[in-house]
C-alpha cells in the first residue's frame, strides 16, 4: 500500500489530475485571487472609476488611520459582531436542545423557527421598521422609545432584528449536530445519575465542539461582513451609530467613488477576518491533537 502511495505519478496521471483540478483553479484565480490582488493594488491608488488609478502609496492607509469615522465604524462593527454572534448562538442552542428530539410537533416547530431565516431581508426590514416606528409594536410592548432615531437605541434595535433573522439558521445547524450525537453517551450519563443541566454542560456542549466551531466561524465572519441589515434598517444612522465597516466601505466606494480608499478598508477587513479564521482553526487543531 505504502509503495503504491509513494510511487511517482505517470505523465498521463499528472495531466488528468491537472485537467480535473483546472476548473477549480480557474474559478479560484478568476473570482478570488485576481479580484483580491486588484483590490490590493487599488488600495495603493486614488481611483474614482474614471481614467487610470493613480499610485498614492500608503496614503489611503494613512487617511484611514487618521479618520475618526473609520475608527467609529470599527467600534460599531466589533460591538455588532460580539452582540450579534453571542446571543444568537446561546439562543439557538437553548432552542435547539428540546427541538432536536424526535416528534412531529418538534419537526413542525423546527420549521417555524426557520421562517425568519428564509424571509427576504428587504421584507423583514420593512416589517421591523413598522415595529420600531413611533406608536408601533415595540412601543406597545416595551414602552415608547426612539428605537431607530437615537444613537443609544439604534444599534440594539438593529441587533434584535439581526438575531431574530438568523437565530433559526443556527438552530437548524445545532439540531443537526445534536441529532448526530450518539444516544449511548446520554444513556450512560443518565445511568451515572447526571441531571439534565449537568448532562448539558458536561456532555452535550463538549460533544458539540465541532458544531460550535463551525457556527462561530460562520457567524463571526458573517457578522463582520454584514452590510444589508444596517443599510436597509438605519442607513448607518443616526449620526453613524450603526455604520458598520462594510457599510462605511460601501459608502466610500459607491456613494463617494473613492475606490482606492474603499479597497484599503476591504484589505484591512480581509486581514482581520483571515487572522480570526487562522486563530480559530489553529485552536481547533491544537485541541484535536
Amino acid at each position, binding site marked *: 500500500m505504502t509503495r503504491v502511495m509513494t510511487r511517482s505519478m505517470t505523465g498521463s496521471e499528472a495531466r488528468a489530475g491537472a485537467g480535473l483540478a483546472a476548473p477549480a483553479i480557474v474559478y479560484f484565480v478568476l473570482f478570488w485571487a485576481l479580484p483580491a490582488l486588484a483590490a490590493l493594488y487599488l488600495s495603493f491608488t486614488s481611483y474614482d*472609476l*474614471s481614467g487610470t488609478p493613480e499610485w498614492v502609496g500608503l496614503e489611503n492607509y494613512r487617511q484611514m488611520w487618521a479618520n475618526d469615522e473609520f475608527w467609529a465604524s470599527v467600534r460599531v462593527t466589533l460591538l455588532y459582531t460580539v452582540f450579534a454572534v453571542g446571543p444568537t448562538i446561546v439562543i439557538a442552542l437553548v432552542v435547539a436542545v428540546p427541538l432536536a428530539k424526535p416528534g412531529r410537533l418538534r419537526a413542525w416547530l423546527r420549521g417555524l423557527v426557520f421562517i425568519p431565516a428564509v424571509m427576504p431581508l428587504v421584507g423583514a426590514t420593512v416589517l421591523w421598521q*413598522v415595529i420600531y416606528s413611533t406608536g408601533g409594536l415595540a412601543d406597545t410592548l416595551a414602552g415608547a422609545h*426612539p428605537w431607530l432615531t*437615537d444613537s443609544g437605541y439604534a444599534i440594539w434595535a438593529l441587533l434584535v432584528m439581526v438575531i431574530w433573522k438568523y437565530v433559526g439558521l443556527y438552530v437548524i445547524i445545532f439540531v443537526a449536530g445534536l441529532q448526530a450525537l450518539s444516544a449511548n453517551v446520554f444513556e450512560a450519563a443518565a445511568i451515572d445519575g447526571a441531571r439534565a443541566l449537568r448532562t448539558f454542560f458536561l456532555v452535550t456542549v463538549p460533544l458539540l465542539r465541532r458544531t460550535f466551531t463551525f457556527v462561530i466561524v460562520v457567524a463571526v465572519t458573517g457578522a463582520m461582513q454584514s452590510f444589508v441589515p444596517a443599510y436597509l434598517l438605519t442607513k448607518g*444612522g443616526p449620526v453613524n451609530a450603526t455604520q458598520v465597516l462594510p457599510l462605511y466601505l460601501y459608502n466610500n466606494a459607491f*456613494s463617494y467613488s473613492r475606490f482606492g480608499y474603499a479597497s484599503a478598508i476591504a484589505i484591512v477587513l480581509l486581514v482581520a477576518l483571515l487572522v480570526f479564521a487562522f486563530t480559530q482553526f489553529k485552536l481547533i487543531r491544537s485541541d484535536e491533537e
Partner: protein
Amino acid sequence: MTAIPRRDLLRGAALLGLASPLAACGSGGEPVGSKEAGPQGPVIAWMHHEEANDKYFNAKIAEYQRQFPKVTIKPLYVPIANLDTKLSTAFTTGSPPDLIKVGAWTLAERASKGQVAPLPPAEFGAGSLDELKSRFDTNAFAALTYKDQVYGVPIDFNSVHLWYRRDRFEQAGLDPDKPPATWEEVEELGRKLTTGSQVGLQWQLADNIWAMLNFLPLINGLGGRIVDETSGRGGLNTPEGIQALEYYGRQGNPRLSDPVGAFGLFAKGTSAMLVSGRFTSSLIPALNPKAKLGETFDSAVVPSWAGKEKVASGYSWGWLVAKKAKNPYTAWHFVNWLSSSANVDQQLSATGLVTPTAGWQKLPSARDKASQQLEEQLPYTDFGPVLPQWTETIKALLDALESVIHKQRPAKDAAAAFDAAVARILK
C-alpha cells in the same frame, strides 16, 4: 474512460474562442438616428422605478414608437437606491445606456468624469443654447449646468414649499389660512403646535438630499453658504452657519420615527409642518387616504427670515445622454418630443412631475396652488452646491445636522467638524 483525442480538444477550444467575438458581432450593426436619416434604431433608457412614472413613460414610449416606427425605446426602471451604483458600473465598463434620467445633484460627478454629453441645441432644432433655454422657464437649467456647460433637459423640477396641516392649526386655535411666512413664525407656531408626541415642524432626517433641501433656505437666507465652491471651503463655521444650525436643532423631535420618515409623520398629523416638494400633494393622500389637500393639509411658499431676502431650495432631475451613447441623436429626439407642451401637461397630470417649459404654469394641469407657488419661487430658488464630491459633502452636512438635532454636539463644534470635513473632501 474514453480518451479525448488532442485534435478534438483543440477544435473545441478554437470554437469556444470564436464564440465570444461572434456573439459580440451579433449585437452590432443596428441603425442609428441622424439629422439626415431621422430618428431610428434602439435607444436604451434607464430611470428610477416609480409606479406612476413607469406607467406614464411606457404609454409615452408606445405613442412615440407609433409616430416613429423605426425607433425602439428600451426602458429599464431601476430601484432608486440602486440607480447611481448601476450607472457607475455601466459607465466604468464602457457600456452605458443611451439615455438616463438622474438627479441633477449627481451631474457634476458624471460631467467631471466625462461620462455625459453636453446638450446639443441643434438636435432640438435651436440655433443656439440661449434659444433652447428660452423655450424653458427661468432657472430651468441651473441645476443641470456644470462649469458653464449645460448637460441635460430638466424633468421633475421642484422648489420646496412649506406644507402644513390645516386640521392641526385649527386644533391649536391658529388660522389655517395664515401659514407662517417667516422662520421666526415657524418656530413660534411650532411651540403652540407641540403637545405630547405632536410637534410643529419636522425635518426630513437621515437623507442627504433632504438634509440639503431643508437646511439651504436657512443658511442662504441669512446670507451664508453651505460650501463656497470657488474656494472649496465649508461655510458652516460662520455666524450665519451656526445660527442656521442652532435653529435647525431647535425644531421638531428627531426621536419620532416612521417607515417613510417625516412624510409619514406629516401624513398622520404627528407633525404639523413639513418642508417638501410639489409631489407632497399626491404623496400625503397616498400615505393617509383621510388627508385631503386643501382641507386637511395645504401648502405655502417656503418661509424666509424676517427682513431678509427670500431663498428657496430646489432640486431637479434631468434627461442626460451618455457621451458613449450609441444612438445620441434619437435619444435627444425622444427627450425633445417628451418636452412638447401636450406631453408636459399629460406628464404633470399623470405623475406630478414638472418639465419647466416656458408657460408650463398656464397648462390645464398646473392650476393647483403648489404649481403656482413653485412658479413664484423659481426666481429665488437655489439648487445647492454643484460639486463632483456632492454626495460626500452633503453626507458631512447630514452628520453635522444630525449631531446638532440629536444634541450630541453644540452647533459651533458641528460647524467646525463640517468645515474640516469639507476641507478634506475638496482637497
